[in-house]
């Protein structure tokens, strides 16, 4: 008697997908391979959740952004351009969604700021600089101060300074020139220094290179 033939095995399928590179995974996605989407979610959710949270400062909204990012990746899978790295493509979708959300948030966010300030001020005032605060306190202050930035300044600052992407990568994600990234970054730092001095003078002891201490 002829032995049965294995037509499909989910386990083998998962192993096969887990061995693909990110780029090949997106190509499999473009070919309509639905399990490839699950593998992509497993690989990239953590980084995207972190990016979205740092961008919008709210975990629920960050979850929404990440879900929609994967949904769009699936819907627009045929538009994936192999010239971009998979991370850049996904970051681009997530960042654009985050910018849209920040724009729609508008006045509602500004109303919440005094409330946030109250909680952030619970941070230990004995510490003399923001560099001595705990990470969660630094993050809370960043989320509060970032309200003073435009959406694109905020995206540039988070991608470049917090996530540590190179300027060229940030330019790819935002679809602009590296010089534009530099200008946004410079403006964002300036605004954040000013806002920190205004709201948290106890931590804003920045002296800049002109003090002589950090001159090149």
């Amino acid at each position, binding site marked *: 008697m002829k032995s049965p033939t294995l037509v499909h095995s989910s386990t083998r399928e998962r192993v096969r997908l887990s061995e693909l590179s990110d780029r090949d995974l997106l190509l499999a996605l473009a070919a309509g391979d639905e399990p490839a989407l699950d593998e992509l979610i497993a690989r990239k959710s953590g980084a995207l959740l972190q990016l979205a949270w740092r961008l919008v400062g709210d975990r629920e909204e960050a979850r929404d952004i990440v879900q929609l990012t994967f949904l769009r990746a699936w819907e627009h899978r045929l538009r994936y351009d192999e010239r971009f790295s998979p991370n850049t493509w996904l970051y681009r979708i997530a960042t654009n969604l985050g910018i849209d959300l920040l724009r729609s948030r508008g006045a509602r966010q500004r109303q919440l700021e005094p409330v946030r300030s109250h909680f952030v001020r619970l941070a230990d005032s004995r510490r003399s600089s923001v560099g001595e605060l705990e990470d969660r306190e630094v993050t809370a202050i960043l989320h509060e101060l970032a309200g003073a930035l435009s959406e694109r300044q905020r995206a540039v600052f988070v991608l470049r300074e917090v996530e540590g992407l190179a300027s060229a990568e940030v330019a790819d994600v935002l679809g602009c020139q590296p010089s534009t990234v530099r200008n946004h970054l410079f403006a964002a*730092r300036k605004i954040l220094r000013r806002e920190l001095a205004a709201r948290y003078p106890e931590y804003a002891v920045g002296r800049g290179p002109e003090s002589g201490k950090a001159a090149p």
Partner: protein
Amino acid sequence: MSCRDWRRLLAHRFDPELPVPREWERAREHLAGCPSCRREAAAIDPTLAFQGAAAWPAGGEEVEAVRLAVRALRRTGRLRAGGAGARPGARRRMAFAAFFAALLAMLPAVVDRHAGELVRAAAVRSGGGERAAPRPAGPVASAIDGLDRPLARIYEWGAEDLSVVMVVDESLDV
């Protein structure tokens, strides 16, 4: 990179015209791993402290929740970030679908009244019987599963290029 080296690079943070040197990437790594330098750097430029903003340690449960949510969104529709509306034109398509569903719901009554004019109704009784009728031939019959069931009604309405076909099991008594 030593604790002293990164200081000379700080000027780049205060001048937008200066290109960001490649060494700055190594300076970032040094600051991330050296608490005393990080404190000093934050004293010179407080925004440097934000490089160490807390990470969100999204675990397996979080990832699984994303996977399930994406699957549900793909099946049931979609949301936009911020709760804004669905994709352009979706409401119009949904209204059309609702109208079409209502039309289908009303169809049996229409069939009973205008059976001879618009609709061909055939009772399929594979075992033979009082209203035995031939199975409809052609692609409609072959494309519908379950037509061999003993009692079913098939309604077809429309022209050759566009037609509505409804199969009703007589046990539903509609």
